[in-house]
């Protein structure tokens, strides 16, 4: 089976000037990332703010240009941003946003907005458009009497449903969801996550699910990639990653998830903050916060390597390149 979406060595660098005195310094938001999404598969991408996960999501859709590397959709390369082919391509891949209120036009009814892709891509004759919109609304669990509502008249969860209905209107093959449930309350979050799972199963959509919430990613994703400062540090099936994380950063991340009833003691708490992306540490970017860092970690950047059970990780210690395997065992 060929991959629905393939990314190869994607790089995205921003120029950021810090302070009046500062020279512009390059920020490598996405730094050589390769990944693939199979049809009907969900790839979760987790990471903290500044890890470049949202930028990656936009690059996968061809919304942000890759400065190096290539994105291929169903085997063919992404057309240039803004061209007619690029616009036509939008029907096949869609984005779901973190803030549905901002992503909706507050002056149009949600029915008009859900129908918009149908008009843009001329998918459905005008007289059948209303039927298709009604069908979409039902699929995401919106009542038909809500068709004439404006975005601000709906609750957060209903707005996100409308955004998802709009994204599904053109029957896309790929859905990139950027923090789609972070702004929602727990009880509503569960509704939307369930709905996404159902829709995906029913329509066989490939999905990239970007989130900082590990619990949600674990629930929805088949495979998970963990990002730190623009690079993937560990990737494996969702069950494997969460059951036995290998990279020290993944371990800390999994350990930091507050579980009801689980006390704080005995959890692995990282020291320090994620470094400024413009000030990337030498060697392994994680080494200043890493509890098992060795000399080699300060000087050489570990490559992403296959380490069994379909897992890849970028860590000298995991790869057995340091003397601290003992320490790693103790952590695990």
């Amino acid at each position, binding site marked *: 089976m060929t991959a629905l979406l393939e990314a190869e060595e994607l790089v995205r660098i921003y120029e950021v000037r810090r302070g009046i005195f500062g020279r512009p310094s390059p920020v490598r938001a996405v730094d050589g990332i390769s990944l693939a999404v199979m049809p009907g598969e969900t790839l979760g991408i987790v990471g903290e703010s500044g890890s470049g996960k949202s930028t990656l999501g936009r690059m996968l859709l061809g919304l942000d240009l890759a400065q190096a590397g290539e994105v291929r959709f169903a085997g063919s390369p992404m057309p240039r941003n803004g061209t007619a082919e690029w616009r036509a391509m939008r029907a096949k891949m869609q984005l779901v946003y973190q803030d549905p209120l901002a992503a909706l036009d507050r002056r149009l009814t949600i029915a008009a907005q859900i129908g918009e892709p149908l008009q843009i891509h001329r998918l459905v004759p005008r007289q059948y458009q209303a039927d298709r919109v009604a069908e979409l609304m039902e699929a995401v669990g919106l009542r038909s009497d809500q068709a004439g509502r404006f975005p601000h008249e709906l609750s957060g969860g209903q707005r996100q449903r409308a955004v998802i209905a709009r994204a599904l209107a053109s029957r896309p093959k790929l859905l990139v969801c950027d923090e789609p449930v972070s702004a929602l309350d727990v009880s509503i979050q569960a509704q939307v996550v369930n709905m996404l799972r159902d829709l995906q199963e029913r329509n066989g959509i490939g999905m990239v699910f970007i989130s900082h919430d590990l619990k949600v990613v674990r629930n929805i994703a088949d495979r998970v990639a963990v990002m730190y400062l623009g690079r993937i540090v560990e990737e494996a099936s969702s069950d494997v990653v969460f059951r036995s994380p290998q990279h020290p950063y993944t371990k800390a991340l999994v350990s930091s998830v507050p579980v009801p009833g689980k006390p*704080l003691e005995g959890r692995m708490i990282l020291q320090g903050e994620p470094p400024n992306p413009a000030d990337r540490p030498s060697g392994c970017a994680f080494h200043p916060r890493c509890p098992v860092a060795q000399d080699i970690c300060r000087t050489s950047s570990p490559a992403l390597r296959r380490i069994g059970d379909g897992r890849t990780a970028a860590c000298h210690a995991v790869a057995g390149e340091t003397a601290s395997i003992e320490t790693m065992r103790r952590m695990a």
Partner: protein
Amino acid sequence: MGTTNPDLVELRDLKVAFDGVQVLHGIDLTVARGEALGLVGESGCGKSVTWLAALGLLPGKAAVTGSIRVDGRQLCGAERSDLEEVRGGRIAMIFQDPSSSLNPVLRIGRQIVEALQIHRGLRGQAARTEALRLLDMVGIPDAPRRFDLYPHEFSGGQCQRLMIAMALAGEPDLLVADEPTTALDATIQAQILDLLNALRAETGMALVFISHDLGAVSQVCERVCVMYAGRIVEEGSVAQLFSQPRHPYTRGLFDAIPRIDGPRDRLIPIPGTVPNPKHLPAGCSFSPRCPYAVDACGSTYPSLEFQGDGRRLACMRPVPAVTTSGEAKRRIHEGLMA
């Protein structure tokens, strides 16, 4: 007085309305000295408003009624100067968005020294030394060099540490933390929770932890209040509530959380949405979303009553006590053992 009345803060029938729309419907709540109380609920349930009202920090259009006693002293309708004495001195508060909660045009050193001046009369070098000690205590590295920096030169997590240092300056008896970790990354969130626990052990102050995150609450609190639509629906010890939630809403909250371990099942959401405070349903506000509701739930609001096991509960059709919550019980058991 402290011996006869151990309660530090006592709220009785606290009601708040904005422009005639009632958002708090009579909150009864006590905080004992040194205890850690969690306040849980979804957005708009009134958990923050309760404490902003208690400290008189709501805007002028809010109408606050009821009784707010701190060490027996009535604050509701009190003079501004009385309130100012309590704020920061007896009860300090930190907020959800640390970066915008610090004054952007003032140096952070000055903002901390200001609090030291008001509550402890420290000035000059003494104030600076004490401020540096506080910065060190909350884990700001290299404090002397960063004393004269501005808030925008700190990250979100560090700004929250600064807020905590400022709150500690008045040596308060109670720290109210309003969603202090919501805006922060997972690993930083864990650091701040850890810091709050350490500080409480060190100073013995009480803590009110307002959050929508049941996991975070269970890590820092001993007692939990669950709020829904401006009312407390269930209150009890963390162990009690987490092993056996009795209110269907509490139960629903637990079920809705995805799990980090175990099978990847479908989630169990609470159907429907939080009601608009302008159009609250009749009777129990939760009844339209409640799987256990009967007709009676839609007509009268159940009062918050003490149960045999020490918890308080406002429900006519609670989740049966022993049988159903085996799953949650197993969960808490696992957790406590780990």
